[in-house]
């Protein structure tokens, strides 16, 4: 049986000054799916994604994660929503003064995970992203691709059900990008739902997944095993 992981019902996002970033969007994403969100800059991809982990609130409509309405959720429940969602950005967002290990451990410490479990779990994920050897390195001693792998390790260290990535390869060269994509593939194989906004035509066309194309805050195309599109 397929479980709906992310459900959006007629969702609008209007910023101040009347910018309608998401304009009446309805979509379902099932548990275990791997979805690309594509579209030109300003199409509304980031706004769409941010409503899933309640970084932004929908102006109208319903956003449901695992059947729970995120929009009218109590403020004190928001942290628990976010523990089910790992988020990865184009600019990594690592803490510069912490080592790779500490950056990943940080995510467990601040949710008050049992300190005895943290060590083991952090080493596990660092191994999975291939950085166990560089656990003691500071971010500025790591390449862009390695920094992004630390960020991925941090996003998945708490075993989230969903991983959201907003242009995760935007700052990386093609070869490094493919290393990152292999890690996403592996995470997805283990059952985690992945939503990834991207500008990379090459990735979308070679690693075929569901493609949701956006324009002006609306979905203009939604295809399984789709292509990037024609506009490039």
């Amino acid at each position, binding site marked *: 049986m397929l479980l709906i992981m992310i459900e959006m019902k007629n969702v609008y996002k209007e910023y101040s000054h009347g910018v309608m970033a998401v304009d009446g969007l309805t979509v379902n994403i099932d548990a275990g799916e791997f979805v690309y969100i594509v579209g030109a800059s300003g199409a509304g991809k980031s706004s769409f994604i941010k409503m899933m*982990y309640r970084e932004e609130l929908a102006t109208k409509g319903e956003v449901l994660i695992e059947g729970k309405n995120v929009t009218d959720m109590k*403020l*004190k429940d928001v*942290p*628990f*929503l*976010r*523990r089910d969602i790992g*988020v990865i950005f184009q600019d990594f*967002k690592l*803490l510069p003064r912490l080592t790779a290990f500490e950056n990943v451990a*940080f*995510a467990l*410490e*601040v*949710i*008050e995970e049992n*300190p005895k479990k943290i060590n083991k779990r952090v080493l596990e994920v660092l191994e999975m992203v291939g950085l166990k050897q560089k656990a003691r390195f500071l971010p500025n001693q790591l390449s862009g691709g390695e920094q992004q792998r630390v960020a991925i390790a*941090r996003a998945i260290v*708490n075993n989230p059900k969903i991983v959201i990535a907003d242009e995760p390869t935007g700052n990386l060269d093609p070869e490094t990008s493919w290393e990152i994509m292999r890690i996403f593939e592996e995470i997805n194989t283990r059952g985690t739902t992945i939503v990834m906004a991207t500008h990379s035509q090459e990735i979308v066309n070679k690693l075929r997944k569901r493609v949701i194309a956006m324009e002006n805050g609306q979905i203009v195309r939604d295809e399984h095993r789709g292509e990037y599109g024609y506009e490039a």
Partner: protein
Amino acid sequence: MKLSTMRRHVREGTKNIVRNSWMTVASVGAVTTTLVLVGIFLALMFNLNQLAENIENEAQMKVYVERTAEDQDIQALEKQINEISDISEMEFSSKEDELEGLISDMGESGDQWELFEQFNPLNDAFNIKTYEPEQLAGVANQIEQMDNVEEVNYMKDVVDRLIAFNDIARWIGIIFIGALLLTAIFLISNTIKMTIIARQTEIGIMKLVGAKNSFIRWPFFVEGALMGVLGSIIPIAVVAGGYYYLYNQFADEIPIPFFELLPANPFIWQISGILLGIGVVIGIWGSVMSVRKFLRV
């Protein structure tokens, strides 16, 4: 809260203080200055309060009865005085009682007065207390009009002046302390605002990975409270030490009527506790203000 979590909050709060060192020094300095002045004012005010209480409890008037008055005149006078509603206590003191009191007040040198027991030169008197010291003047005026009253004595000037002074001092103290406390709170909240801004990225990541709001806030409360504690150390030393010294040097030599210094023990412990408490409260208050305003979680 788990012990490991509590340790972490204290560690992070302490780190904030060290990291922000010169802002912290400024805030702690402000708290120190404030609390020294607050401590001095409080010491004054507590003692003035004690003074007011003493006046209230002890201030009384003495009505001297004409020596020519007969027993029935005295009874009539007593009845008349009794009708004044502001009077709380009234007690007749015969000239023999008065003399006895005088002799015992004099101590050793009182012996020579015993001669007067043959021919007592004193007057019969009424000792009268009013409900409030402010009522003494009015009551005295009324009694002075009555027959067979030779003199009414209540240390008019002293009582009136002490009452007025006490009121003014109390108000100036309250306003001054209030202003100083607000300044210190403002400085602390400003320091914590700087910490919050400096840790913006970190706070963002904490929110992103699902840290609870209270978890994010706690280190800032710790930081505020620590600044308050640090800021109260010098004031406690200065005020408690200073009071102890003054008390031991001068407690017996103060020439103001009704006035006596509160005993150093327990007063210095009480005022130390109060200063520490005020420090912690303004520290936490300052951090709450900043956290509310700048830590949108």
